[in-house]
């Protein structure tokens, strides 16, 4: 497959970012463990049960949550269902194509799904209406509106912010409307490697030249709940442990600052 002009990176940009990172500098002047400005606007879409408009620097992601009545899976008759989907629309970046979901959007949806599911953030067992027959199905839909790097963290933040505000529309089945049962608040932190340095919250420029990416989600207790490694580069033992420590530390800060928990 031939790559479009936008997908080919300037060779000298790669060398330059690597060179300055060895001197402790990032191209936008941030510290290695500094996030860009996070702005979240919840209940952005009035017709959804929950939603969030997230801006992480110039990256913008819109997350919508719908809660509908459905049939449970035969192997889990006593728990609700969570489905996550991500859409990379062509408006967000010249490198995004319309058409069926590609590898990147599937990875994005799966990583966010794993963060929510494996952290047991939503108490799915409380989402049963009639055991074995009717349960609540939670649809999390991620729409990327502007791509300037670090979609994984922006989408995870958006999904979690939207779920925290989500109401289960009990009135549809002659019950009361209730907030979605929440157990934990996981936070996903993505780091990339340029040269031999790890950066959190990569911008598009940094993502383009990165050799390795590692995303780690942690919960309040500092447990790792999800992890994904991307790109073709490698990480040493020490780097993985360092990445975990950074994720826990920054995760705590963001959980407090953004979600107030």
């Amino acid at each position: 497959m031939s790559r479009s002009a936008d997908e080919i990176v300037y060779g000298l940009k790669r060398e330059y970012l690597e060179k300055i990172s060895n001197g402790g500098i990032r191209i936008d002047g941030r510290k290695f463990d500094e996030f860009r400005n996070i702005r979240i606007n919840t209940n952005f879409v009035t017709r959804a049960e929950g939603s969030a408009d997230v801006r992480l620097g110039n990256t913008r992601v819109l997350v919508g949550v719908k809660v509908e009545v459905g049939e449970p899976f035969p192997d889990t008759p006593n728990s609700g269902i969570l489905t996550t989907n991500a859409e990379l629309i062509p408006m967000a970046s010249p490198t995004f194509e319309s058409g069926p979901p590609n590898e990147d959007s599937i990875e994005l949806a799966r990583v966010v799904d794993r963060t929510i599911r494996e952290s047991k953030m939503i108490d799915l067992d409380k989402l049963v209406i009639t055991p074995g027959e009717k349960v609540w199905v939670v649809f999390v839909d991620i729409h990327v509106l502007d791509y300037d790097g670090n979609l994984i963290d922006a989408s995870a933040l958006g999904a979690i912010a939207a779920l925290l505000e989500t109401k289960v529309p009990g009135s549809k089945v002659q019950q009361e409307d209730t907030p979605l049962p929440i157990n934990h608040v996981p936070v996903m932190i993505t780091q990339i490697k340029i040269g031999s340095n790890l950066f959190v919250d990569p911008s598009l420029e940094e993502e383009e030249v990165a050799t390795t990416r590692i995303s780690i989600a942690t919960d309040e207790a500092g447990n790792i709940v999800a992890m994904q490694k991307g790109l073709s580069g490698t990480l040493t033992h020490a780097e993985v442990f360092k990445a975990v420590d950074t994720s826990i530390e920054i995760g705590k800060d963001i959980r407090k600052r953004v979600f107030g928990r």
Partner: protein
Amino acid sequence: MDISKKIVLPGEEIDLNGMKQGNGIYHENGKYYAYQLGMLQVYNNYVNLIQLSGKYYPVKNDRVIGKVIDIAPSFWILDIKGPYPGFLHINDTPWKSGSGELSKILGTGDTVFAKVNEITESKQIWLSLKDAGLRKLEGGHIVTVQPTKVSRIIGKAGSMVNMIKEMTNVKIQLGQNGIVWLDGEPDRVLQVIKILKIIEEEAHTSGLTDRVKKILEDMR
């Protein structure tokens, strides 16, 4: 009424006050309208429209910065942020194709500072490296700005860009196509990137060179 520096919207009627119709303006039923969002400028009794934003359109002898995106048997295909890619033939470079392998000279992702040599009738853009100062760019960093703002970054007779170069000690190579190559101390390069953003945003205001000078002095 003085119409210079007036900002007009696409399709907005323009009263030429008896002056002649220049670039970026069309007429219909005896009236004049703007093609694009831009600022009016009066020059030699002509009213021209200077567009505020837009894509780069190559003109012969423009100096541009291009990125190799593909290699053909005897020429390179370069992205110059224009409507069509640019072609650079081996005969228009100082190099010889002795081995026959072009990728050994310039590979995909390499950057060159070239000039637009010729635009054919079928809109093929041929570039050349055969002139003073044209070369393969090595080291340094690449940033992009709006192509319409490049002339503002250069300033009158290069006043703006020379001032930035002098005060920051950063080497700057500007392409007419809005691609800028910078090389120098990393924190100085960051300052220049910030300055370029400011110039881009405030390009239509007057007294910009003095303000930029002040910002640069404060940064020191």
